[in-house]
């Protein structure tokens, strides 16, 4: 961001805000696209979104239909496989490919839901803590320390034990465990920005605390939050899959990838494909998002920019 500011200061004519935004985007894309991994991650992610949206159209079978005459069929390219079930079938004869395609809906929804929940909650709480300081800040930060004292998966597991095992409860639990990171980041950024001249100027111009927090300060704290959001997105998918694997997340017969793995566990030594493909789907999704996250960090963090 800092580079953009100097660029604008040096240019003779004052740019309109639309032109400025376009220039910032252009600069962002320049740094982002320099990172080959990030672009690959973005492409995979876009494909995943397309798969999730088009699952009903492209899936060859229903994810729930049990073909009793085709139980544990191996993938098409191995002996005994058939082209009807490209990636084989699971122990009750459901088509694995179709379940994986529908599973993309679950994972992406989990990522979006959990990240939005923890991001919005974290920003609100972090803004309040960083803006008002004092006892309210102390209370909030101690509370965040307490949440951080538990391993995230354990806390999620216990919360699900209280709320009952379901995907919704799992997502809420994961959002709670991810939230402190957003609170800490927002608070630190707010504290750094609060003493800057432009904030003082806005305050002198008569801006109230709500406007100062959300319109003046927040837009200048977005870079680390975006990077953290991508991290949370992939963490949410991993944790939700782990909960599903432990039987505490999405419940069967949902084609959630972690739940699919849990159902396939006892067959690992007999039918490798029922275990391999759902995990591969999780890995590819998380990897794509983490690749994008690295690219975003390079593009948004002025400290790391190669000048």
């Amino acid at each position: 961001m800092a580079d953009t500011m100097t660029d604008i200061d040096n240019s003779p004519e004052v740019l309109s805000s639309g032109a400025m935004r376009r220039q910032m985007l252009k600069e962002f894309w320049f740094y982002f696209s320099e990172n080959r991994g990030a672009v690959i991650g973005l492409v995979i992610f876009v494909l995943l979104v397309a798969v999730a949206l088009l699952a009903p159209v492209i899936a060859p079978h229903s994810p729930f239909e049990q073909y009793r005459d085709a139980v544990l069929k191996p993938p098409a390219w191995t002996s005994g496989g058939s082209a009807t079930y490209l990636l084989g079938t699971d122990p009750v004869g459901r088509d694995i490919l179709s379940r994986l395609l529908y599973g993309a809906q679950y994972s992406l929804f989990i990522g979006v839901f959990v990240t939005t929940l923890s991001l919005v909650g974290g920003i609100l709480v972090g803004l309040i803590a960083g803006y008002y300081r004092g006892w309210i800040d102390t209370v909030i930060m101690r509370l965040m320390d307490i949440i951080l004292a538990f391993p995230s998966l354990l806390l999620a597991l216990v919360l699900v034990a209280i709320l009952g095992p379901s995907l919704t409860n799992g997502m809420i639990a994961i959002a709670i465990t991810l939230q402190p990171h957003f609170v800490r980041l927002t608070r630190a950024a707010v504290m750094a920005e609060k003493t800057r001249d432009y904030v003082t100027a806005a305050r002198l111009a008569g801006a109230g605390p709500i406007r100062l927090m959300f319109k003046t300060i927040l837009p200048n704290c977005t870079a680390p939050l975006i990077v953290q959001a991508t991290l949370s997105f992939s963490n949410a998918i991993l944790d939700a899959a782990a909960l599903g694997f432990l039987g505490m997340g999405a419940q069967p017969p949902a084609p959630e990838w972690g739940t699919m793995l849990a159902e396939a566990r006892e067959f690992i030594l007999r039918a490798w494909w029922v275990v391999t493909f759902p995990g591969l789907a999780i890995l590819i999704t998380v990897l794509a998002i983490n690749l994008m996250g690295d690219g975003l960090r390079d593009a948004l963090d002025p400290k790391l920019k190669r000048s």
Partner: protein
Amino acid sequence: MFGLLLRRLAVLIPTFIGVSIIAFSFIRLLPGDPVALLSGERVMSPERHAQISAQLGFDRPIVVQYFDYLGGVLTGDFGTSIVSKKPILDQFWQLFPATVELSVCAIILAILLGIPAGVIAAVKRGSIFDQGLMGIALVGYSMPIFWWGLLLIILFSGILQWFPVSGRISLMFFFPQVTGFMLIDSLISGQKGAFASALSHLVLPSIVLATIPLAVIARQTRSAMLEVLSEDYVRTARAKGLSPFRVIGIHALRNAMIPVITTIGLQIGVMLAGAILTETIFSWPGIGKWMVDSVFRRDYAVIQGGLLLIAAIIMLVNLIVDLLYGLINPRIRH
């Protein structure tokens, strides 16, 4: 140093109290009657209910109940398991060495591979080594370890039959638990093949548990090294004609280690979370599996006690890491 300890404790004590309040209220937040949940008796007469309620202290004001609970915790009374009826702390001490043994092996593996990988990547920045190592690190970092464990079981236990699928030692061996650490106990027992058996049981779970910390340590070492390598004193060391090994190994690495040590410390919490999954996959009798089993058995007393004990361990480890950090890096003592 002492000042640092006091400052850390000033933060730690309120956090511990907060954690204990959470553990205390957890059982009361559950849907249903906490008396029935804690005693494990589903159907009971009103007299019996009142009796247990009084026994557990539920008939007193909530604040008194909390201080009773905290007093119990501070004197080592974490309650008794609903299922096994044994004191929770005893169970914990019985299972904890298994988790420590696994975690220590995993963190050693992660450090031994992660730091050299990060150093090589930083020194050969932009080369094939750098890209390859960091690519692998990112895959490791993105790995769903519960799946990774299953894959390793398919390959090394199923197809190659190199390593056992589950447990800590072959059932052929029986010897008294002295330290609780299977590697040490098997050596003390002097039984032929016991140590090898214990070691072979440790290999796959250690790899699985080490995966994410290894990736994090490698990435952190690389970026810390890159930062240090561009410093003036490294250039000076090079200009003095010191060998590249000395410059990188002594001058640069020592300073780069400071953030890496913090990262390693932070991995302890990650490891305990990872232990939940790793121990479940490999039927490793540690506290991670204990917690999962307790959630399934609805042994809320164990969940409550285990939650508090695990949080306390993580806080203690973080305190030690902070103090260690102050010891290595005098700049943050003040």
